[in-house]
């Protein structure tokens, strides 16, 4: 059984290395990190701080342009230069908010999964893992930019951008606090439908352009899923428009000062939440990606930052669609039952009219509204994450059945309810 002589000669005598044993060299590690719900909450705090700080600029930006004596505005409206500058700044800002919210939500998702799966999740890179997604982002930027040989290079490049642009376009019209909105459109609801659809196209053409069969299947599934679920989603939006009587998102929020829209329009709110789950493409509706079936679905051939755009857009939608739900159904930036008593009113009443304290109080009131807005959005986002952690995914025909046989009839019933309630109460 001994080794043959040629095998023996292969065995070299090598001295033992001085220190073969591994010595960890890590930064930012603290074994005593509290790691229960507290840590997930700590990461949520990140979410509030960073997204909140960025959104503060939202409040300041239009105000800057309307300063008395500003060359960029005259008589309450922009000059041409002002409008161009404002447009560029607004785009950069909403890009930043979408990206930051997405990066933080990725981290929160991974920490939450760690919590419910009896493990830690990212924890060694930065304090309690806070720099993990930043490292991921930097790495993806520096990774090889790669286009498959037979892919349609133009569409291949455009697809991730379409998905991402769709996500951050929506940010511009969402009112985060009283008066804090980049574009106060009077057709806001229509804009939501229009901008949201661009993302569906992005996924479809992305899956098609990569010349991969799994990608094609994923893209087709995405087309069927996203287009179908646009219908109950849009009907739910319509319900709100019927009930409130306006397409402007500010008006819709103002109408919910006393009662949330979700209370009379419970069916529509539920339909919206389920349909938005499908629009975000998270389990149980992650068929376009379907990791175990289609490898990675429509983004099978995407690498580096191109994949990063898809990834970030998915999580930006995890922030955006709950945000829209909050605006439409859950009272926006108002605290619950703000019609009876509103702490924001107390803040606004500070000091004499026009004094510095009064102006500061107004800012505080806006920040207070934004806090409620972010809190509600975060809760809805967590609900989505919770569902994602639990459920397996549907089959494609079941997905369609759920949409066409359940959600669309339900949303129509919701619309009928809204019409009747509107006729009775208003």
């Amino acid at each position: 059984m001994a080794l043959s002589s040629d095998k023996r000669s292969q065995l070299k005598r090598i001295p033992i290395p001085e220190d073969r044993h591994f010595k960890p060299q890590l930064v930012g590690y603290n074994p005593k990190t509290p790691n229960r719900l507290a840590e997930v909450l700590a990461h949520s705090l990140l979410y509030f701080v960073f997204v909140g700080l960025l959104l503060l600029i939202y409040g300041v930006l239009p105000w800057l342009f309307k300063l008395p004596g500003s060359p960029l505005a005259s008589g309450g409206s922009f000059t041409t230069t002002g409008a161009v500058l404002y447009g560029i700044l607004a785009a950069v800002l909403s890009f930043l908010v979408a990206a930051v919210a997405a990066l933080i939500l990725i981290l929160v998702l991974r920490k939450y999964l760690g919590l419910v799966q009896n493990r830690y999740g990212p924890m060694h890179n930065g304090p309690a893992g806070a720099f993990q997604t930043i490292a991921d982002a930097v790495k993806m930027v520096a990774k090889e930019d790669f286009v498959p040989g037979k892919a349609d290079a133009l569409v291949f490049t455009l697809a991730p951008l379409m998905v991402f642009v769709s996500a951050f376009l929506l940010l511009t019209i969402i009112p985060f606090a009283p008066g804090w909105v980049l574009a106060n459109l009077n057709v806001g609801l229509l804009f939501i439908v229009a901008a949201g659809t661009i993302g569906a196209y992005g996924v479809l053409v992305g899956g098609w352009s990569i010349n991969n069969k799994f990608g094609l299947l994923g893209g087709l599934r995405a087309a069927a899923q996203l287009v179908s679920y646009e219908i109950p989603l849009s009907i739910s939006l319509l319900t709100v428009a019927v009930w409130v009587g306006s397409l402007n998102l500010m008006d819709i929020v103002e109408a919910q000062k006393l009662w949330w829209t979700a209370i009379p329009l419970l069916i529509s709110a539920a339909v919206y939440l389920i349909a938005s789950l499908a629009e975000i493409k998270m389990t149980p509706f992650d068929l376009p990606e379907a990791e175990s079936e289609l490898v990675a679905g429509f983004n099978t051939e995407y690498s580096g930052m191109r994949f990063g755009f898809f990834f970030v857009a998915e999580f930006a939608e995890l922030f955006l669609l709950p945000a829209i739900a909050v605006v439409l159904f859950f009272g926006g930036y108002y605290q619950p039952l703000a019609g009876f008593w509103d702490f924001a009113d107390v803040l606004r009443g500070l000091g004499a009219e026009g004094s510095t304290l009064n102006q500061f109080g107004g800012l505080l009131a806006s920040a207070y509204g934004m806090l409620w807005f972010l809190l509600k959005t975060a809760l809805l986002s967590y609900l989505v994450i919770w569902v994602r952690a639990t459920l397996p995914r549907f089959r494609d025909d079941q997905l369609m059945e759920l949409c066409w046989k359940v959600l669309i009839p339900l949303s129509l019933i919701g619309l009928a309810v809204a019409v009747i309630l509107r006729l009775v109460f208003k």
Partner: protein
Amino acid sequence: MGLLGSDRRPDNIILGKLDDLINLARSRSMWPLTFGIACCAIEMMNSSAPRYDADRFGFFYRNTPRQADIMIVSGTVNKKMGKRVRTLYEQMAEPKWVISMGACANQGGPFRQGYSVVEGVDKIVPVDVYVPGCPPRPEALLQAMLLLRDKVADPEKRYIPGTLMEADFDVLAEPGKDGRSL
């Protein structure tokens, strides 16, 4: 891979620092490919299980080679599979690294005398870290991942593009041609 794509350290101090930063980010965010072959694949899956939790260090398994940074060859590579292993390696986007996990992937292990087994995956793809064991404990795989992480973050051992090793395709030839007894 440096930003400049050169194998020398850039003279420019800013680019040098940026390079170090990128290497640091790469080392803290290594996404392995979900690529199980044999017994070691169970322990590889186990390394992301609650007891070991590779996610702590940012190891986040991806299913498609395009998005992965590390390939963990976890199991016996035979001649038929060797071609696919090479294809998968070529499909991964630069920069990329390979961990050879277990005796079979290292040098054929207990099956090295068989006619169909490739004696070491390093004949097909360049391997950065070897993990012995049959199968190795998940901790051993974690140690290998951390070794690889140190190698990536080390500015002296920066990743050099274009060092794609030529595979020794003779080892994938038809059985019987290499004259092994079994």
